[in-house]
């Protein structure tokens, strides 16, 4: 008998095929923090035919904007989005890495102006995708980030 790991939602956003272990980072990218009023369920290391193991995040009662969802591609370029209405999939798409992101990544370069305290500055990065490898370059100091997971703000 199949067991339901995370129950179906009536309405909201399901993020599927997240690389295993990265669900918490997905929440961070979507700025879903402790104290949120949203109903959020999360499953980690769920068996998957395609991926071996995957994570899933379900956000009840909220249709998250595509622009926000596409930021997930930074850490999980294979993630898929299902927008659910009345338990049915209304729209499904694969995340697309944005060309520019603001306030998602922080620059690893301590001497970068974007890390200066008190300056009214939004860290901004240019995103490049080559053969499913996503890298980012700081708009201010030009530093390249290869391992984006470590620099989600």
């Amino acid at each position, binding site marked *: 008998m199949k067991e339901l790991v995370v129950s179906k939602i009536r309405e909201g956003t399901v993020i599927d095929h997240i690389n295993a272990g990265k669900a918490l980072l997905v929440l961070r990218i979507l700025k879903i923090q402790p104290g949120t009023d949203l109903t959020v369920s999360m499953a980690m290391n769920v068996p998957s035919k395609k991926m071996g193991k995957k994570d899933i995040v379900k956000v009840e009662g909220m249709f998250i904007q595509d622009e926000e969802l596409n930021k997930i591609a930074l850490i999980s370029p294979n993630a898929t989005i299902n927008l659910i209405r009345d338990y049915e999939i209304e729209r499904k798409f694969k995340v697309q890495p944005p060309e520019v992101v603001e306030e998602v990544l922080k620059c690893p370069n301590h001497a*970068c*102006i974007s890390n*200066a305290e008190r*300056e009214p*500055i939004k860290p901004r990065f240019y995103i490049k995708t080559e053969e499913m490898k996503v890298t980012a370059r700081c708009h*201010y*100091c*030009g530093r390249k980030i290869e391992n984006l997971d470590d620099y989600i703000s």
Partner: protein
Amino acid sequence: MKHLISITDLDREDISYILKKAEEFEDVAMGKRKLRILEGKILGNLFFEPSTRTRMSFEVAMKRLGGDVINMTAQEASSVAKGETLADTIRVVSGYCDAIVIRHPLEGAARFAAENSSVPVINAGDGAGQHPTQTLLDLYTIKKECGRLDGITIALMGDLKYSRTIHSLIKALALFEMKIYLISPEALALPEDIIEDVGGEIKKARLEDVISEIDVLYVTRIQKERFPDEEEYRKVSGSYRITAETLKKAKDGMIVMHPLPRVDEIHPSVDATKHARYFQQSFYGVPVRMAILSEVML
């Protein structure tokens, strides 16, 4: 509005245009011809880090074109830094002048300044980042002294890891299909990501193996503070010192460049050789900065 933040914002055509314009200003820079095209304009020099020659060179360039200069020195800047953000300083000072020259210890500071400024911003060095006016005057020196930029063989020697001059310059050299040799101690080698970014023909080498082949030897300072102990510094710095003897096998037309100030990486015996061009290079900063100032303010 035109800013000059990074050499990578310019293409070959932009660079050639500025260098051509600089040539037209050379006699004005020498005081042989008077020009007042920036009369009534004020340049704001914001130096958050000490600098003598870059600041003076901008000041001279502005004054030779009939303009005026206001200065904020590193000492004044440090008192500003205690209470005010860079964004606010720039907003205020851009109300006082027609263009801003900024040197700042943090990388990307000039780009951030440009985003907060109502007048053009020129980057005069941001931390280990960019120093585009130095790069332009370096290119001008090569063009003037070697007669061309394309197809030059150049060796970059010294601290290639931390030198912003080198990081800026190497990106521009690649635009002109130069053959580049890197000569440095392993601990001060050019970062791999910069080599990858630049592409083109770049090889690590020893000076004695390439001295007879190169058209330009670009020397930079090896800073003592980069080494854990003085002994290590002495060992390394000694083997990267140029003397008249070192240059014996060089081509007749080979030139030695240095962004200055030098400490002891170029022995004074080199000054009298036909190869020394570092003082000329330093002078070329004036016409090049005149070209940049007139370009952003007119």
